[in-house]
């Protein structure tokens, strides 16, 4: 691992997570650990048992058992009965119709969760069951969508496909994924004087929760404060999904005049809240004898569930990543945002990018197998390339110039460090000797666009206070869900003041401190909030510099040095806290806000062209697997990763994101299977049935390195975003499994995702069994 500590700077060092000691001692306070106000009630939401039904009647008279304080249905919502983030369609309580099994119908507040649950189930809800659309093929047939069909196009793929030397078509099913944050959705709402509402919410998007609480209560935003110190994991699942929970808690708190806690247990959480979108992707690709893509048509059917939620932006991102690292001279990418009677799918680490990327990697794999060429060779001839003979091989299908492409270098270095070529021979030898067990390997690249693709969202604010004792308190609009954002931002601010990290403290994200924030999402937390906090700190430092220069008399403000807790101006020097105290006595403001907006980006939606991303993050992985051809079971033997985080602010935290992202991505594509019954009821709603990776599923040999480089764009510390991109390194595992199936004798294996042992055995059986 390369860390680059510079002198006494905090940034660049592997500082431990700011809450690490609290985590390990059990002292870190999560929303459910907050001491509840006296008289706090507990809430429970009754769910629809049907995927699609008309509500004939709701009779709650039986719900009022001892200990029950309020029962609420749609008609009791004083404001707007909708918690949708963008486009309407996510009612707090279903009103006339239920659109998925698990949809909230009513809620009860009672003196215990047990009473609330029992009471809710005493409600008599009469339904008329209606036919349900449960897959994307049916939605396409019925033309039922949650958003407009969208096309990104470059060149003329239809014409070009007619004139290619080689052509393949196929399809791929890609399953969804549950976030499985360890801490379930939760909120604690407390009514305050004068109609105000305070809410602790486990959310990635406090500003949106604030706004939606105001909307459902029909009060102004300024009467609502939302706070979050930390989440027990988010992964996108608490971007829009936290709102329903917080709003129901707030509605019941307003109704009862008491604090109300709403915590979904694991089953309710998994049934009621959205997941990663499942996709069905069809492709038609033309290429030359080297496997160089000449034209491609790709159709992406996204299973959006029952409402738009964030699906349009997610489906857009799937389209933006239909190229991954590959130049597409002629391409048409068409996206259908399919309506189904299932929970509305939502943001999940990668935000559509993984599905788009998996599809093109599958296409490349197909091309290589069709031509009997090494897959890595086919990848290389297709890489974006500004240095080559044709400069135009560096423009994406949505018209963005790929200026910063380092994937070829990453691929070369990884191939060498992973000993890739030699291992191909070892795998052949192993497979020749072993009739039952077969090994496979794949090396796959990642190029991931960084920025919210809705340009407006790329802004952030921060608030920095320096107290008279020289300690610094920091607040910004980002939320901490484990990714180490707060630690990195503290490092950045500590360096502005030349202070040791311990002198900077970050407090709970609070909508009354920094307003109108964007979600902590799109990997952008550090890029946006780090810059905003840096700006706020620089404002104060500027004032202090000016003051110090005045005191010194002979020094220009820009020459004042802040380092190791000492401020030096010419021949004069003060410990930081002394200068701060002096500045206070001279009535210098020691508090400042900071603001940042990402430069350069724009998007012309009508033309489907622009520069939606400030830059790209890159990485590559080699995974080797072993497969049991009798059961389809497998094990990851070794994974090597080389990943580009620019100049790392915190190598340990970045490595943690890479390793965790990879394992989560591998889980998505292997053991994590969502399974609905024929009536559209989710049956995998707890860890007993939904299997995320355990420690034994990680590669036996796991080697991770940071790519030595820095971001050519002006990002904080020249770093790159790291939250989402590594998830897609897990694609190497999926394609290694496909490779193992192929090496077992199936020439063009059909492997759907997730590649459960069952899916692998099914792919193997296309040959009629192996042994």
């Amino acid at each position: 691992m390369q860390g680059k500590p510079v002198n006494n700077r905090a940034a660049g060092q592997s500082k431990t997570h700011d809450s690490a000691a609290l985590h390990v001692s059990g002292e870190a306070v999560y929303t459910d650990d907050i001491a509840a106000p006296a008289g706090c009630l507990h809430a429970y939401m009754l769910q629809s048992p049907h995927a699609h039904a008309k509500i004939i009647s709701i009779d709650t008279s039986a719900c009022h058992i001892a200990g029950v304080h309020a029962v609420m249905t749609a008609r009791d919502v004083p404001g707007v009965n909708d918690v949708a983030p963008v486009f309407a369609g996510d009612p707090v309580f279903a009103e006339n119709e239920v659109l998925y099994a698990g949809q909230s119908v009513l809620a009860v507040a009672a003196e215990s969760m047990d009473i609330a649950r029992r009471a809710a189930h005493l409600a008599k809800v009469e339904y008329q069951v209606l036919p349900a659309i449960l897959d994307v093929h049916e939605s396409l047939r019925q033309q039922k969508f949650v958003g407009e069909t969208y096309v990104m196009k470059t060149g003329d793929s239809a014409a070009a496909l007619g004139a290619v030397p080689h052509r393949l078509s196929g399809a791929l099913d890609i399953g969804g994924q549950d976030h499985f944050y360890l801490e379930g959705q939760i909120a604690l709402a407390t009514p305050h004087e004068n109609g105000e509402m305070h809410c602790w919410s486990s959310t990635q998007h406090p500003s949106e929760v604030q706004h939606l609480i105001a909307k459902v209560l029909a009060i102004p935003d300024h009467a609502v404060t939302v706070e979050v110190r930390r989440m027990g994991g988010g992964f996108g699942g608490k971007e829009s999904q936290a709102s329903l929970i917080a709003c129901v808690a707030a509605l019941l708190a307003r109704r009862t005049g008491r604090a109300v806690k709403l915590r979904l247990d694991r089953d309710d959480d998994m049934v009621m809240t959205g997941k990663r979108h499942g996709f069905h992707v069809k492709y038609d690709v033309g290429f030359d004898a080297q496997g160089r893509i000449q034209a491609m048509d790709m159709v992406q059917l996204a299973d959006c569930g029952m409402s738009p939620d964030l699906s349009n932006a997610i489906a857009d991102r799937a389209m933006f990543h239909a190229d991954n690292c590959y130049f597409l001279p002629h391409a048409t990418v068409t996206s259908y945002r399919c309506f189904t009677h299932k929970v509305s799918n939502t943001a999940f680490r990668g935000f559509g990018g993984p599905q788009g990327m998996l599809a093109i990697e599958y296409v490349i794999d197909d091309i290589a197998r069709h031509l009997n060429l090494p897959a890595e060779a086919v990848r290389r001839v297709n890489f974006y390339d500004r240095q080559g003979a044709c400069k135009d091989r560096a423009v994406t299908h949505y018209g963005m110039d790929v200026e910063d492409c380092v994937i070829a270098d990453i691929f070369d270095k990884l191939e060498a460090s992973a000993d890739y070529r030699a291992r191909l021979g070892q795998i052949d030898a192993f497979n020749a000797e072993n009739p039952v067990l077969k090994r496979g390997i794949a090396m796959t690249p990642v190029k991931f666009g960084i920025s919210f693709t809705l340009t407006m969202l790329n802004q952030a604010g921060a608030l920095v206070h320096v107290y008279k004792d020289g300690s610094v308190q920091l607040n910004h609009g980002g939320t901490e869900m484990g990714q180490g954002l707060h630690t990195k931002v503290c490092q950045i601010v500590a360096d502005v003041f030349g202070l040791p990290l311990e002198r900077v403290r970050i407090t709970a994200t609070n909508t009354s401190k920094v307003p109108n924030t964007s979600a902590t999402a799109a990997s952008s937390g550090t890029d946006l909030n780090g810059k905003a906090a840096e700006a706020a700190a620089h404002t104060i430092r500027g004032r202090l510099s000016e003051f110090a220069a005045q005191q010194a008399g002979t020094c220009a403000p820009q020459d004042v040095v802040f380092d190791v807790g000492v401020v030096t101006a010419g021949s004069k020097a003060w410990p930081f806290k002394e200068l701060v105290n002096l500045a206070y006595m001279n009535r210098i403001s020691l508090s400042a806000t900071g603001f940042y907006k990402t430069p350069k980006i724009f998007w012309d939606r009508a033309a489907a062209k622009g520069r939606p991303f400030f830059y790209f993050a890159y990485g590559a992985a080699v995974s080797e697997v072993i497969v049991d051809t009798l059961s389809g079971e497998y094990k990851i033997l070794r994974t090597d990763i080389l990943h580009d985080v620019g100049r790392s602010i915190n190598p340990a935290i970045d490595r943690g994101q890479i390793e965790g992202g990879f394992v989560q991505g591998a889980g998505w594509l292997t053991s994590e299977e969502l399974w609905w019954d024929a009536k559209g009821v989710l049956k995998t709603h707890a860890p007993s049935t939904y299997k995320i990776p355990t420690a034994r599923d990680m590669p036996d040999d796991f080697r991770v390195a940071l790519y030595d480089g820095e971001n050519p764009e002006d990002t904080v510390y020249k770093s790159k975003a790291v939250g989402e991109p590594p998830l897609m390194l897990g694609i190497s595992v999926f394609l290694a499994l496909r490779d193992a199936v192929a090496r077992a004798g199936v020439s063009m294996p059909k492997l759907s995702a997730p590649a459960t042992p069952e899916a692998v055995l099914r792919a193997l059986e296309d040959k009629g069994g192996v042994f």
Partner: protein
Amino acid sequence: MTDTIRFILNGKLCEISGLPPTMTLLQYLRGPAGLCGTKEGCAEGDCGACTVMVARLEKDGSAPYRSINACIALLPSLDGRQIVTVEHLRNVAAGALHPVQQAMVECHASQCGFCTPGFVMALTNELNNNPQADDTAIHDAISGNLCRCTGYRPILEAARRAKDMPRVDIPADAAALASIARTKMFSYEMPAGKFFAPVTPDELADVLAQYPDAYMLSGGTDVGLWVTKFHMDLPVIVYTGNIAALRGVTDVDGNLEIGAAATYSEAFAALAKRGAGMEDLLRRIGSLHIRNAGTVGGNIANGSPIGDGPPPLIALQAEIILRSQKGTRSLALEKYFIAYKKQDRQPGEFIEKIIVPKRAENTLFATYKVSKRFDQDISAVCAGFALDMDGGVIRAARLCYGGMAATPKRAAAAEAALVGKPWTREALADAAAAMDKDFTPLSDMRASAAYRQSVAKNLLKRFFIETTMPEVKTGVYRHAG
């Protein structure tokens, strides 16, 4: 007349009354005890965020700690135990972090931190018992702990690093445990329900005679979920875990006798020796925390069609002893399972022990499990195979499967296809073909019917390969390295 629940929590004696008997330890810790370091991630014993250490006084005076899931342990079942939660580690480490905690910090092994107390407790428990735990032991120790952030590498590194740090022991207080030990049945009778914990088989028989509809509770790894997941009311619970006579694991003339209330952890070593694949299978039954609580008898008594104990035990011709006030009777294990949720157990009866007979030298045996994930997953298919060979000819065959029918079930047609034949590819093919007549499995979230049918045949094929072609490598988990 009701007793109070007595246990030692983080070094202090707690005496509890007035709480419902179905309250879980986790609910107690996070509620009345005000100890919020232990987390709820699933309330079904599958994620480990609630991991705590629990010691009990054994007959030999020792009091070893075991890791368990607090989320499915019913509070009265902790009577007489010593419990350590994450909050206590700073006490034993004199205010500092325990080495496991310190190593976790140094190795960047927490991200969101929600699973972290559970990992800390699982690893502290392991290193407390086994200071030189190797990687297999460390993996076993955290087999029931899920982390969604780190990808586990730094947690494993922290475990290895903690081994090299100065030890901080967490001793159990045997004297204190002796002072709260019961010599006769513990009765906890609340308006919300009754809980009885007899200490002898006779007391058990008596209380079951008095309450024939009582729910029997052993490790609670299934019954706990009836409470936390199905929200069932259990008006009378009879707990078997304090009956020393039901917890023995003994070898009687080569026959292994396992008391019905012995946990899988307690029976692990003895069972692992009973045949090829047993250790691999046992390692995949639940997680270590589940095996520390769940019992061999409970895994049989609940009649589940997907329990992993019965298939190999039936193949090994195990029998069970059922007991009641009226006396005892013995039953071949396979006869116990009558139909889905229907077993040959009369009201007032309980399983006293499981007897695994000595295996004949000419019996070929293996057992296998197939599931989506190695650790802590329920089988798609589990198989136990035994072939009694006689001069190269199969004299008797016992091919028993879990996950293929409404009960653990033998493949009668496939067995018939093998008997009297030499163990050859042809016999294998005949048995596999015959197996279509044996089973019509279900499709569910764990596997499709087609997959189950294929795997059932393929596992027999694997058995053939392993018994006739020892040079061929099988099983990815054995040959991963």
